[in-house]
């Protein structure tokens, strides 16, 4: 993604700097931090949902089958 931005240019030979407007190639992707704790929390939530679903099925069974 080309974007026009202000750039401070500094030449080490002349030790001078100037501010210019330049088109820069900047990334358009979002960088996300990978967080293992969040992943584990998601898995726990999914497992809880599965257990709840199983409980509903179990409760719907007749007492004889339950035993």
């Amino acid at each position, binding site marked *: 993604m080309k974007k026009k931005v202000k750039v401070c240019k500094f030449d080490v030979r*002349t030790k001078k700097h100037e501010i210019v407007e330049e088109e820069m190639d900047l990334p358009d992707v979002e960088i996300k931090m990978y967080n293992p704790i969040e992943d584990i929390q998601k898995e726990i939530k999914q497992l809880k949902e599965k257990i709840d679903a199983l409980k509903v099925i179990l409760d719907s069974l007749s007492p004889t089958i339950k035993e």
Partner: protein
Amino acid sequence: MKSRVFKPPQGEVSTKDILDVIDSQKNIANGIAGLDSNALVNLANLPLIPASQLDFSFAWEKVAEISSSGVASVDITGLDGDTDKLYLLLVAAYNPSTTATGGLFVRYNGDTVVGNYAWIGWGNAAGTVGTSYQGFGSTSGVAGTAVGGLPGGAIGFFVAYIHAKGIPVGTTLYVQNVGMGFNSGPVTYGNEAGGWKKQANITEITLFTKAGVAIDWLVYLFKPKW
């Protein structure tokens, strides 16, 4: 050569004490005589460095000091990485906007090929530990290597070493950088490391905010004198 330890005489000085002093001087003289002529020449040429000069600038030369406000990028040109071999980059930054920078990155020689850059950042962002990365050959991502991040309203300080000469792996040469950073608001600590598939001698180092956010910069670049 076995050397004798000379202990300064206490109280009255005896003849033995004087002989001990002479002996210790003989040991030093014998030690010097045992050195080859080149070593003696080198010793004679050792610079006498005043204590006042034994500071950071004795070993490192400041090649750039840049203070600039409201710009998204600081571009340092006129470098000679093959000769300089190593750079020390210090960045203090302030993000006056409410938009996060999405990361501060370094680009070499204006190379915008994403696949030539790889980096990893790991840290603690407002109490949450995490990591993010990009591998060589990526088709999407950032054409640069990570230095740090700066949330909206945050101030930050980042340090990075750049091995400009590069290390050869097969026929490919890689430039590496490694650094650490800290910023506030929300508080984030991080370490970053990255590499660039070296295309040519480094003549330009460009610092930029990933999202093009205009921030305030104070940048120092040093090269070794040794």
